[in-house]
């Protein structure tokens, strides 16, 4: 394979009019882009997050304290008749939670027939109503995709204005990225049959955020 590699780099450099590696790009290049590419938000970040997520068929339940989390979950499970068998991540926001004794809580990766998952999140993005979830032993990625219903518990202070703010927090959070960073904006959807939008193609049919505004 090394020969293919050498040939590709040789052709690239030839096309660029060089024979060797050349100087690395000057660090000033980004300043030359000059303009601010971050869209102005029409609302306060938290309101914008809720508005954007709801406009793509996500649902948001705003509560004012983590003490009402179980009630909020119970209400959502009840409204959609989802039962009380949950696959839960062990994200900090869920770590200390006291699950009702009669609920069946499963931790670890999702299984093929799991109906509902509950996870935390690393951040929310106001710009697009996006939830950012990092893979980790406590937060297996399959929880975000296999179940029919995905519920995310998010704290309002985790909501940042733009995607760039997420990258900044990520760089501060950890050297190098985790295996998977999921940016999730609403439920799974497809328009592959006659351009008609249908929710629940392969991933979750419903995407629900419980937003704790403490």
């Amino acid at each position, binding site marked *: 394979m090394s020969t*293919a590699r050498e*040939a*590709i780099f040789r*052709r*690239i*450099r030839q*096309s*660029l009019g060089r024979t060797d*590696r*050349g100087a*690395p*790009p000057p660090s000033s*290049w980004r300043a*030359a882009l000059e*303009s*601010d*590419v971050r*869209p*102005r938000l029409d609302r306060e970040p938290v309101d914008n997050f809720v508005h*954007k997520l709801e406009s*793509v068929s996500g649902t948001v339940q705003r509560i004012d304290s983590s003490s009402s989390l179980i009630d909020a979950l119970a209400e959502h499970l009840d409204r959609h008749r989802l039962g009380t068998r949950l696959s839960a991540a062990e994200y900090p926001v869920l770590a200390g939670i006291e699950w009702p004794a009669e609920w069946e809580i499963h931790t*670890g*990766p999702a299984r*093929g027939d799991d109906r509902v998952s509950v996870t935390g999140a690393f951040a929310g993005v106001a710009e*697009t109503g996006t939830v950012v979830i990092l*893979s*980790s*032993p406590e937060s*297996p*990625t*399959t929880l975000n*995709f296999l179940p029919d219903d995905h519920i995310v518990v998010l704290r309002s202070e985790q909501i940042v204005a*733009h*995607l*760039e703010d997420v*990258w900044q927090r*990520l760089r501060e959070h950890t050297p*190098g*990225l*985790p*295996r*998977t*960073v*999921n*940016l999730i*904006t*609403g439920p*799974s959807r*497809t*328009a*592959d*049959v*006659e*351009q*008609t939008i*249908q929710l*629940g*193609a*392969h*991933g979750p049919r419903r995407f629900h955020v419980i937003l704790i505004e403490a």
Partner: protein
Amino acid sequence: MQRSASAFKQQAELALRDEVLQRALAKAKGGFVDKRRLAVANLPEFETIRTAAKSLKEHTLAHLDFYLEQFEQRVVASGGQVHWAGNAQEACSAVLEILGDQPRQVLKGKSMVSEEISLNAALEAVGHTIVETDLGEYIIQLAKERPSHIIAPAVHKTRDQITDLFHAEHVKYGYTERVTEVKAIVDEARAVLREKFLNADVGITGANFLIAETGSTVIVTNEGNGDLSQILPRVHIVTASIEKVVPTLDDMATLLRLLARSATGQEMTSYNTISTGPRRESDRDGPQEFHVVIVDNGRSEMLGNEFHDMLRCIRCGACMNHCPVYSAIGGHAYGWVYPGPMGSVLTPVMIGLENARDLPTACTLNGRCAEVCPMSIPLPDMLRELRVKEHERKLTGARTRIALQAWAFAARRPMLYQTITRWFTAVLGRFGARNGRFRSLPFASGWTQARDLPAPQGATFQQQWRRHR
């Protein structure tokens, strides 16, 4: 990938007469265009972002070797492997080598590069089983067709056709009822594919972006199929072309703001996923191996030449959605992997102008594609450039060449030109005065076969100009 780009004219004529295809195209028409228009109108910063996007991509291309090396280093540092492929054959060999000798169950997320290198055929030839998991790709895999659109591969299929296809192919899984509603169709595909997801060895996806800063690959999807394809199997292979690399996550954010809006009119697709290396030691799911196959296939030679701008393309499909030719004939008539305006540029460049000589002329030069292109790619200019090359290389028909040369001879001699045009408009004007148009004309059947020629008003523009000045 089978090529039939040289048969464009016949294929286009068949497409125009194909009633089912025309019904499917009519359904799609307008949807993409209206949604994009609304999404762009709702983002006042669109033009600013578009300008920045062009600059950042040009910067990246000017330092492409640097960013590809940086990307490679970071992939390796995070535990993944990089494989380089100069052409389609090398790319397929690289994937085959990763798969090994055992027949594998392979899931595919949508990847246009894998179509370009005919990956499925190469894998199936040695006994691997491939399942396309994007619903559109799955439909056309069952139909044994190729994508007719780069983001809506089954846009040429009507719901009735999909119903028939599913009925024929899913009986073996116990689905005996015909599903006709969109929801039921999607649910059935979900159930059939869920089994495949849970029992696969390898997942292959494309990449919308490669991030040099972090050594990550990024997929942009709505269904979640790409994610299931890459987190459930033991091995994740990414096929991506060299121009997909961007310096940082910030640059990806800039391009993401253009991509979904230009493609489907969404502000953000449902799932944007950044993958870096294999699963970490204590992770409880995710792939244990992570491979990136980086494909050149002619792109390094486009750098800096007259088709350089094409390397900025982010594969949104806006050009084809706004193309009157694509809207009339669909994507298959173009005869290779990439249809529409971007395909009419890429196909001749990648498979040879002599194998796709009709594509550059399958364009009215109306300019809508360049107007909507988020990366400001001058598609009509490049198609015109290809026409010049065709003329220079004598790839056009003898009649066309003689006619063009005769016209050029006259056009450079104003007295002669005016005399001829005066005579033509006077004669044609007199003969055509009664109907105002001609249904057929000798030596112009190529025009009048498909439409009437309006009769001239009896005087040339120059004559009228002199009279009214």
